[in-house]
């Protein structure tokens, strides 16, 4: 197998670390993304998935401590000089942010906003033609480039943001909850667009969401995060269809299968709340909410253990050879 495009090794991110004890948002995460591959990162708010997105592009608040390695094409993003980092952002890796509806400048025409990104990175590029081309790629008529954000609907603004992320032909696109604020039908449109772009442009993509069912549909592989760590990873469809980790099972059950009678008039949730990153439970951090926890769990040093066919899961039941 060739070198992965992106290789994250033992990533730790701690917010507000200087001096006093910070908030550990990511606590030792490793994963690879090959060129043209799609990886899903799933988990609930506070699990650290958006922090990873920010760390990859090094766009986290000051005083945030980032440790580990983020190798993009073999080069460590964390060691890059500011000039090199600016060049890598957008031209190599770009991001479609969550809550995108507020990410556009309200007083600038959207075409100019896309054009600005192109000009900064490649002043000689034929900006106007490229903007028109990008708008067409994301399914908007080129004339919409003359509109201000408020003249566009939510789905159209999301398309503009995707065009913006594609402006400098990156090789890796990070999509952080790109469909969360959108309507069902528009969500489907945007997912279809991302799928087409990924295939046609050979983009590698990291798709971040709490919706496992969407990942099973968009991504080849999925990693599920809990309390700043990956707790399960494998083929996206497999992870959703037959979870090895009890947390994944709960997350999968949150999106019921229509037609599945075990979910009919029987919503299933997970008791308790996601852990506070400042007070992460000992042992397996999931144990206070876990329905299959055993006496050892509060002390067990869990790590990702093989769970068959390219799967790994951090659960003592997996280590003992029994799926929960």
């Amino acid at each position, binding site marked *: 197998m060739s070198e992965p495009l992106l290789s994250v090794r033992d990533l730790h991110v701690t917010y507000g670390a200087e001096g006093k004890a910070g908030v550990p948002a990511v606590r030792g995460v490793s994963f690879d993304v090959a060129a043209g591959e799609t990886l899903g990162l799933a988990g609930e708010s506070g699990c650290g998935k958006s922090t990873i997105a920010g760390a990859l592009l090094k766009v986290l608040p000051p005083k945030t401590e980032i440790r580990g390695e983020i190798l993009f094409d073999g080069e460590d993003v964390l060691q890059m000089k500011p000039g090199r980092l600016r060049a890598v952002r957008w031209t190599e890796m770009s991001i479609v942010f969550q809550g995108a509806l507020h990410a556009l400048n309200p007083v600038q025409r959207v075409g100019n906003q896309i054009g600005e990104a192109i000009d900064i990175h490649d002043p000689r590029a034929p900006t106007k033609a490229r903007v028109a081309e990008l708008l067409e790629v994301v399914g908007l008529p080129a004339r919409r480039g003359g509109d201000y954000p408020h003249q566009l609907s939510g*789905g159209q603004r999301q398309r503009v943001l995707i065009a913006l992320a594609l402006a400098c032909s990156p090789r890796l696109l990070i999509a952080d909850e790109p469909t969360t604020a959108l*309507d069902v039908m528009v969500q489907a449109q945007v997912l279809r667009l991302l799928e087409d772009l990924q295939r046609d442009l050979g983009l590698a993509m990291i798709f971040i969401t709490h*919706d496992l*069912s969407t990942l099973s549909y968009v991504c080849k592989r999925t990693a599920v995060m809990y309390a700043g760590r990956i707790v399960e990873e494998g083929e996206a469809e497999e992870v959703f269809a037959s979870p090895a980790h009890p947390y994944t099972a709960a*997350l999968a059950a949150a*999106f019921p*299968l*229509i037609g599945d009678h075990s979910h009919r008039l029987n*919503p299933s949730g997970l008791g308790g709340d*996601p852990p506070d990153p400042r007070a992460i439970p000992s042992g397996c951090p999931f144990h206070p909410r876990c329905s299959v926890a055993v006496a050892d769990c509060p002390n067990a040093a869990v790590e990702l253990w093989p769970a068959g066919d390219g799967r790994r899961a951090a659960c003592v039941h997996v280590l003992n050879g029994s799926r929960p």
Partner: protein
Amino acid sequence: MSDVLLETRNLHVRFPARHGEVAQAVDGVDLSVRRGEVLALVGESGCGKTTLARTILGLERPAEGEVRFEDEPISYDARYLRPYRGKVQMVFQDPMGSLNPRQTIYEVVAEGLRIQKRPGDEAVRVADALAQAGLRPPERFFQLYPYELSGGQRQRVVIAGAMVLQPALLVADEPVSSLDASVRGEILALMLRLVHEQGVTILVVTHDLGLAWNIADRIAVMYLGRIVEEGPTEELLSNPLHPYTRALLSVVPEVEEMEQQILQGEAPDPTRIPSGCRFHPRCPLVASGEAERLGIADRCASEDVALSEVRPGHTAACHAA
């Protein structure tokens, strides 16, 4: 006592829009909510579902038609509305936005009792409502502020604040869409428990057909101000009759057997309701030529279509059904 708790008859709600235009947010809705059921009102944003819910609560006045509660048309006289709002309570989408950040949890839940001037021991009622909503022991929450709770706990407080009045009807607008995945199921389970244990009736407004499968007895699908399909949940989701419902169902990622029918564009503009069937400009049957083959294409474009019973208890407003 009739089986129907609340109904709307030929309900129209209009809003002034730009350039003297009028938005027909609700454009002729007949909907019945039966005692003890969970009815899901499903549609895209802009279809009028939230306006319909607000009109049911007496927050908007209909331009035509009426809302009837327990067989009587509701009145917009303050003397009527206050007790009415004790019987019909709303749970909003975003629990952080609907809780006063400077009120303690006790104050939040007690407020309704005070406004409604309900007699009895306030502290006991507040404690009962919190416990019922799964916040136990309730006394531990009395002096906390909303920011000290998790998203799921906040939504439980909102539900406790509604249930403390022992309403007959709970109108819940996207009650779980702002919550984390794992907490979602817990809140839905709580809503079902309230139906079974407290006998409350629930009208849940959502865009999520999976949620309807989880908790609803019946579904009404709304498109551009009208109900276009209605029926028992299992019947409607296994035999969707309206092409709009089929399209909505086909984009739920879990439903893989169906070929995706992604409708283009966004929910259309309620100031310009198309002639004929209001769905025809986006209808896959029309676009694919199927309507032409069925010989109904002209009617789709020119003739409005009302709900009619196609299968037992299952109505749809489509020329092809």
